[in-house]
């Protein structure tokens, strides 16, 4: 029997007025992959922050035993010295430094304060080979994709002689093949190097794939630990633990509201990169969206889905945009975002904190931001009407906040996402382009967002749904387009689509490119 590498006993952590962790016990054995799951706000990140010393010893109650010895980490540096490395969901890489510089950031290969560049590059290549990162170590981090950045983070952890690797939702911004590669890498480390991992993830199929044990947190408490081979590990089982109830159907049913009227038609749509203007991001795309229809766009990261949606949205992104855009049969020339909003379009960004919400403003200000006309006359705000109408949205969408004056930055991820959706519903668009609307959102809030989508199409609106989660597309869409490297490679009605078929289309399409 392997020995216990880490044991956390009776961890309790309170923030003023909030009990974030309540008497959590957790044991991780050497060489296992231990998954941690729970809804947003269940306490996963807090628990890992306790472990890695971000919340220093004394800021919490309970004991952390590492290698059988009690630990009192005062900072992240302390825990790193013991081989505990945490990789956060938001990567801690400096875009304008090279891969090698990032890899040894804070851990430089140096002699008396002078960096030894020869060793730095040699070691960087070594670690890059281990994680399968094929790049020049002198490449700037800003020039490599998200998947490769994630690999770099892991290489960086290896450079710190990691024994216990903590990954906080590492695959949330990766496509399926990059995710698969990352998970296989963890399995390989476990086999070959005996590295122990703790994996926080919302993606239950991944957990079932790699995890030896799964600890489920709910409301700051460790509900149960499932062991592979002993307990039944299925998505339904884990979801039951997380939400404390059975979700019979993860996607709410909806009747068909299709009328056959085409709401949006995009033809010969081509978009180039805003900086490298010879690079095509969207290549001669055709797309139709009917009234009352949910149309999905499947594809890997970098397939050009976000670029397509944003370029349609008043040329919010890209250069040299060409093509025909028709709404309700009439051709439109949208040259600015206000134009697009005026014409009933809405684009709900995938990056709610970065591009979507104003975290320092209240719920109320955020909701009305894109459509101030509804609460003003001649540019002068009617604040009473604003409170009234936003309050109505708060109730309709079930946004959990004491009042609409609450700052958005203080809400949980799921509630922030609902505010973002509410903001664009408030603008009363006819066509909504939702980009990864359920990213980083817990199961319960996901379900609510799906219900909102269904209500919207019931009102005759049309939804373009961009998602990297294929079950979501299959569960929600009437029709699915498959995009690959800027091109539309397939169009599938719901009945004909399966994950395998979609992946197959992507593989077929990208094969040609790589071979050529």
């Amino acid at each position, binding site marked *: 029997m392997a020995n216990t590498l880490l044991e956390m006993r009776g961890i309790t952590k309170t*923030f*003023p*007025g*909030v009990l*974030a962790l309540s008497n959590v016990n957790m044991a991780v054995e050497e060489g296992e992959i231990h998954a941690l799951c729970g809804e947003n*706000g269940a306490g996963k*990140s*807090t628990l890992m*922050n306790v472990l890695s010393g971000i*919340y220093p010893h004394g*800021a919490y109650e309970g004991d952390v035993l590492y290698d059988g010895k009690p630990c009192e980490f005062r900072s992240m540096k302390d825990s790193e010295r013991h081989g505990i490395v945490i990789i956060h969901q938001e990567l801690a890489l400096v875009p304008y430094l090279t891969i090698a510089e990032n890899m040894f950031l804070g851990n430089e290969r140096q002699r008396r304060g002078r960096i030894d560049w020869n060793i730095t590059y040699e070691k960087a290549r070594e670690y890059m080979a281990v994680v399968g990162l094929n790049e020049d170590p002198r490449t700037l981090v800003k020039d490599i994709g998200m998947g490769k950045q994630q690999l770099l983070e892991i290489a960086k952890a290896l450079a710190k002689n990691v024994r216990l690797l903590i990954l906080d939702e590492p695959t949330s911004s990766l496509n399926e093949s990059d995710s698969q590669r990352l998970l296989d890498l963890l399995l390989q480390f476990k086999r070959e190097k005996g590295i122990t991992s703790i994996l926080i993830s919302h993606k239950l199929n991944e957990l079932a794939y790699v995890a030896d044990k799964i600890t489920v947190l709910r409301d700051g408490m460790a509900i149960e630990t499932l062991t592979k081979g002993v307990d039944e590990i299925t998505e339904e089982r884990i979801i039951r633990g997380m939400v404390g109830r059975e979700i019979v159907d993860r996607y709410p049913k909806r009747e068909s509201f299709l009328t056959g009227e085409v709401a949006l038609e995009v033809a010969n749509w081509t978009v180039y990169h805003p900086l490298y203007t010879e690079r095509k991001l969207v290549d001669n795309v055709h797309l139709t969206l009917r009234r009352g229809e949910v149309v999905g766009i499947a594809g890997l990261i970098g397939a050009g889905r976000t670029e397509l949606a944003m370029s349609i*949205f008043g040329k*919010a992104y890209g250069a040299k945009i060409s093509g025909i855009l028709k709404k309700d049969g009439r051709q439109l020339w949208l040259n*600015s*975002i*206000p134009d*697009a*909003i005026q014409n009933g379009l809405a*684009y709900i*960004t995938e990056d709610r904190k*970065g*591009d*979507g*919400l*104003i*975290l*320092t*403003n209240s719920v109320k*200000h955020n909701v009305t*931001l*894109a459509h*101030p006309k509804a609460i*003003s006359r001649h*540019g*002068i*705000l009617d*604040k*009473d009407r604003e*409170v*009234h109408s936003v309050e109505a949205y708060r109730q309709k969408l079930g946004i959990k906040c*004491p*009042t609409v*004056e*609450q700052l958005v*930055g*203080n*809400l*949980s*991820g799921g509630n922030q996402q609902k505010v973002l959706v509410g*903001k664009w519903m408030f603008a009363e668009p006819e066509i909504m382009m939702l980009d990864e609307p359920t990213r980083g959102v817990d199961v319960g809030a996901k379900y609510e967002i799906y219900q909102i989508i269904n209500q919207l199409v019931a009102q005759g609106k049309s939804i373009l749904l961009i998602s990297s989660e294929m079950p979501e597309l299959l569960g929600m869409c009437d029709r699915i387009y498959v995009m690959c490297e800027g091109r539309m490679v397939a169009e599938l009605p719901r009945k004909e689509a399966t994950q395998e078929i979609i992946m197959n289309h992507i593989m077929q399409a990208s094969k040609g490119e790589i071979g050529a």
Partner: protein
Amino acid sequence: MSVNLEKLGSQLSRNLKQYTMLIALVAVVLFFNTQSSGRLLSPMNVSNLIFQNAYVIILAIGMLLCILTGGNIDLSVGSVVGVIGAVAGRLIITEKMDVHLVMAICVAAGIAIGMWQGFWIAYVRIPPFIVTLAGMLVFRGLTLIILGGQTIAPFPDAFKQYTTGFLPDIIGRTHIYIPELWGIRLNIDMTVNGLSLVAGGLVSAAYVAVQLYSYLNRRRKGYATAGNLRGLIVRLVAVSAVLVTLFITMGTYVNERMPAGVPTVLVLLGILLLLYSFFTTNTVMGRHLYAIGGNQKAARLSGIKTNAMMFFAYVNMAVLASVAGLVMAARLNSAAADTGDGFELDAIAACFIGGASAYGGIGTVGGTLIGALLMGVLNNGMSLLGIPTSVQKVVKGLVLLTAVAFDVISKKQTALPPFRLPFKRKAKPEVMAL
């Protein structure tokens, strides 16, 4: 019961935080007034305070809008004040042009300067720091060129009357004699400028009426945001008492050579403060300024014309700087090469002391006024006490640092969920992971 106590406690601590700078201002005023044995709040000095600080308040309002867009500052305002003064001096004193025409030309020049800087900032996307640093040099240089190295003086009364004079006392001197009121001995026996008395009454009555109307209106419609009546009454009484006292104090200022009373520049300040208060809180454009400062990308994707708003903020700043330039020229009664030197820093300090965020998106006109007054009273008070300017600078620097540090630290604590218990505070502020 305990819940009520907690609620009361949290309300109190919130209010304290909100009014910290106001409390600091009151404390500083009382301190210097005692130390100078009442000279700080003497009728003459109160008028002086207004004259001395008018330019800071005008500039700080403009600066606030720039800071709101994302912590962007305008370093050129001091030089703009200088160049506008120089233009006014050249045209009025040397060229003998019509005063009103020149004032219009100066404001137009302000618009032109703002458009020039706004163009580079908003449309070429050069950082405001660089553009306005360049502007600081360019406009100071232009000031020297226009003045040819000389100081031009004096300005005619027709020009000075607008910003250095007093409103004509159309009501006439009034004698107030109140030996006692409701059994309390008051011994009030003084002669007051009639207009000042009436204006004080009207201004505070207008304030009370507007506040009460909006309160009753909200309550009638049943909004929770109305707040409680007791707090409102306390505020109404306090503010109107301050206003009435201020006007009466100004009214008792007897100047042998000039009719004293309500300074004309106070009217300008009042209008600007009300206008920009309304603009920042009650208009769509004002709302957009805050949004841009909070998250520029999100603002752009919400259909806000971010470039146009940046352009507006800098044009507005330059226009207000030109107004301040006219005020300053009249006050100094001359156009000199170094007029306005360092004013940008006074304005920036006022905004930050007044609670504006160095990252943008947070700040109010009211707070900025308090910040400007705090700096003004410190300046004036220390001068009254005969503290050397060298020490004054050290004190002002430390006050700025303390005010912002206090703000940053208290923000860290308020960034927690609102239902926290105010009595359980850990020594170390923590930001909760959400």
